């Protein structure tokens, strides 16, 4: 088990899982390597944001390899999930939204009921897969937790493993970060 800690978020990643805590580059932000600029692809994981968009931290956790260019909600990852696999994303939104009704729930869910997973609750419907999405606030920060199972039929086996990981997530009050350069 290894601990990831960045952007005032932390999580213990169990053996067999991969994880990353990252923030996409904002348009024009000097987080891209010169080679990446020439190729028009991001050196920072994921695509850079459109002009004017403020980027927020993301946590990706999965029992499969995390490709460098995966989308926020796992496009590029969920396609590779096997029957016993899982993908979890913790996506932060602007703290100003933490008081909005959609983020009314307080605290990250740490004990998800396997039966709340639904094949219809996927950002992108794929055969046998199921997902769940929960919005919440914690430490004056607004988040969406989204989890995907490789196989809905094995939810009672896989969801407890997701809950074990969620039990280790720490969300601290966020200190305003400056540009990387």
């Amino acid at each position, binding site marked *: 088990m*290894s*601990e*990831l*800690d*960045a*952007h005032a978020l932390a999580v213990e*990643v169990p*053996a*067999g*899982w*991969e*994880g*990353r*805590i*990252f*923030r996409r*580059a904002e348009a024009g932000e*000097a*987080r*891209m*390597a*010169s*080679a*990446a600029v020439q*190729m*028009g*692809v*991001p*050196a*920072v*994981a*994921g*695509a*850079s944001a459109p002009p004017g968009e403020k980027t927020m931290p993301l946590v990706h956790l999965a029992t499969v*390899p*995390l*490709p*460098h*260019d995966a989308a926020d909600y796992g496009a590029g990852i969920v396609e590779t999930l096997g029957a016993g696999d899982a993908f979890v994303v913790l996506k932060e939104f602007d703290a100003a939204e933490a008081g909005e009704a959609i983020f009314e729930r307080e605290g990250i869910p740490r004990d998800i009921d396997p039966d709340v997973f639904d094949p219809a609750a996927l950002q992108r419907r794929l055969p046998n897969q199921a997902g769940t999405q929960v919005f919440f606030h914690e430490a004056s920060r607004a988040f969406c937790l989204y989890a995907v199972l490789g196989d809905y039929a094995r939810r009672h086996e896989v969801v407890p493993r997701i809950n074990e990981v969620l039990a280790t997530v720490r969300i601290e009050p966020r200190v305003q*970060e400056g540009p*990387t*350069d």
Partner: protein
Amino acid sequence: MVLAVVLALVSVLVAGLLRSHAEILRSLHGLGVDLDPDAAVPTLGVTVPRPTARSEPRVAVDIVGITPTGDAASITVVGAQHSTLLAFLTSGCSTCVEFWNAFSEPELRIPGDARLVVLTKGQEAESPARLRKFMPPTVPVVMSSAAWDAFDVPVAPYFAFVDGPSGAVVGEGAAGSWLHLVGMMEQALADAGMSTKRKGRRRAENGRAREARADRDLLSAGIEPGHASLYPTTDADLSGGS
């Protein structure tokens, strides 16, 4: 007559050279160096440390650390279904520059269809700002001195090829160029009885790249902006029916 004198002089010269050569060889032999190519076992008077063969392969470890952009990442190496090529690079060594450049090539092919991960030392020994100038667009770069320690990295650039399912390091060593490294890896894979096939690494596409590719594909299929198929109005439109 003159020819005989010249021949005699040359003979004396050659004899002198041969004697001198023999004396040099005897002197070197006395120092413990045997230059005889037919010698059964080359001997060296000076003890040079040589790599010692491990009775068992080194077992790899998973990777965890921060990235040069201040993010955090953990990467599964042991127990993975794929092999992993770990490249230990620095932002300062001139030889490393070739590898940083090679790893930025979109069509880079890794023997054994391995996943490539670059490992640098941690923030206490590396400059994130310098590393950001070298970071390949589609290869993860993790800063972890612990990983360098775990693999006993003696020099940079250094490489370790890990078989995912077993977690065993099937090949490791230093290399001076990408081609040199590829040769070493293919040899190590062959020795380990593993496939040396090289697949192209899928080039990452960001949103704009995906959009451009989709546009090209649609145009090549004769679907231009405003095409009726882009605006389905019935279930039959969606299912492609008539």
